[in-house]
């Protein structure tokens, strides 16, 4: 009975819980596609899962400076192909690359460099930040300003970003920051909200007039993640086994004791009275 009760209390086996923790997001990663080559005309971008000849995602007429939202995909091997806009899906791609998507990882696949040296770059994007901070990296995609200094709140975070380079991520205090991309012949300035727990890629682009900064939000989480699970039930629908009999048994025991004490005295008094009266 005790065994049955403890099994009832435990309910879910611990092994089952750990298995489901892994399977909650098991097999899902994210991928986004970008065109960051200034002098390359718009392209059609195709995403194929490995060994599948029909595309899973097709983005048409992707122009310079375009970055798609993340698409959730099953973990595994993929290939990304770029074709000239309007080219037949069965035609030979201008460029293609393979990418292995790991579960819980996010990737940016970007066409980068000048048209003459266009290449597809696969970036493993970061999702996490130190608690309460924001993370930022810089992609320098301006051909007109070959080298750019990138600052945040007046502080240099990338001193010499060369064309088609990607910096590593850096943690910065969460705040609204003034950021600047400073080239030899042009400067771009913008105010950006860097909330705690958010990860950003700042892309420096050739704009219609000088430079431009585009803020990509790579990921966001709770600035301060809660500790543990939640306590959201009082058991009104849970059902209960019979309560413990111990308190009631103790009460019966106590009652018996009291009654015995009373009864004993009663008898003694009765005896004494008999002695006194001599009956």
């Amino acid at each position: 009975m005790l065994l049955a009760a403890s099994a009832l209390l435990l309910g879910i086996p611990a092994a089952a819980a750990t298995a489901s923790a892994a399977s909650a997001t098991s097999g899902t990663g994210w991928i986004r596609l970008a065109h960051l080559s200034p002098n390359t005309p718009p392209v059609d971008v195709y995403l194929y899962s490995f060994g599948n000849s029909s595309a899973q995602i097709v983005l048409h007429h992707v122009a310079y400076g375009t970055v798609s939202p993340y698409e959730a995909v099953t973990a595994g091997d993929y290939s990304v192909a770029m074709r000239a806009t309007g080219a037949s899906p069965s035609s030979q791609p201008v460029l293609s690359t393979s990418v292995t998507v790991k579960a819980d990882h996010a990737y940016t696949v970007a066409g980068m460099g000048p048209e003459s040296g266009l290449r597809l770059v696969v970036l493993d994007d970061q999702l996490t930040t130190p608690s309460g901070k924001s993370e930022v990296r810089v992609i320098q995609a301006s051909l007109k300003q070959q080298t750019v200094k990138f600052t945040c709140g007046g502080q240099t975070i990338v001193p010499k970003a060369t064309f088609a380079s990607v910096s590593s991520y850096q943690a910065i205090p969460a705040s609204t920051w003034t950021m600047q991309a400073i080239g030899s012949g042009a400067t771009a300035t913008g105010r950006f909200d860097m909330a705690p727990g958010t990860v950003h890629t700042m892309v420096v682009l050739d704009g219609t007039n000088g430079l431009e900064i585009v803020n990509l939000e790579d990921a966001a989480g709770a600035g301060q993640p809660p500790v543990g699970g939640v306590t959201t039930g009082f058991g009104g629908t849970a059902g209960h086994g019979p309560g413990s009999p111990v308190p009631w048994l103790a009460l019966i025991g106590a009652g018996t004791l009291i009654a015995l004490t009373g009864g004993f005295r009663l008898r003694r008094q009765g005896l004494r009275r008999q002695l006194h009266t001599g009956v």
Partner: protein
Amino acid sequence: MPTRKPTAIVFAAGLVVIVAGTAGLLLTRHSTPVLRPVAAGVAALPAPTGPIAAPPQSAQPAPVASPVSLTIPLIGVKTQLITLGLTAGGALQVPSTTSVAGWYTGSPRPGAVGSAIIVGHIDSLTGPGVFFRLSELSSGDDVYVKRADGTTVRFRVTSVQTYLKDHFPTQTVYGPTPDAELRLITCGGAFDAATGHYLGNIVVYATEVS
């Protein structure tokens, strides 16, 4: 005799206590059954009408308004959303009433990039709470959140999991994501009458769709 009466009273009192103990014992020998939701094959509520907001872009994401209400047609949930913070110990606050759900203000707003966290009770001391039927959801079911600016976002359930609170995967549930997602959390699993708490949590994972 002056002492005879009190001793008789003691004896009688003992008998009364025995009777009370026996009655208590007999009255508490039955079990109350677990209340289970009746699975409904059709939506209990209509889906909200009106346009559905587009998922956020990676580039220059626009700020989104605070959530005000939650609708889950399949399980008949339609509730206001209150705001929740953290307890002194750093755990999630829970709504003070069991009939409404709440959004953790430290998590992204529903429809912004990241996992928005919404919490509700499975039951009160006496009956079902707002998330009583949460475990009935499965992949593909729709969840709607209306925001303060009148816009509505739609999420599609991708997974429903039950975890022991002792093995709660904090990072998987609360951790960052690169797309707009939603986590609906309530209690589940076995109820521990000794502590008055459920031993598990049910977590519904959903991703924004247009």
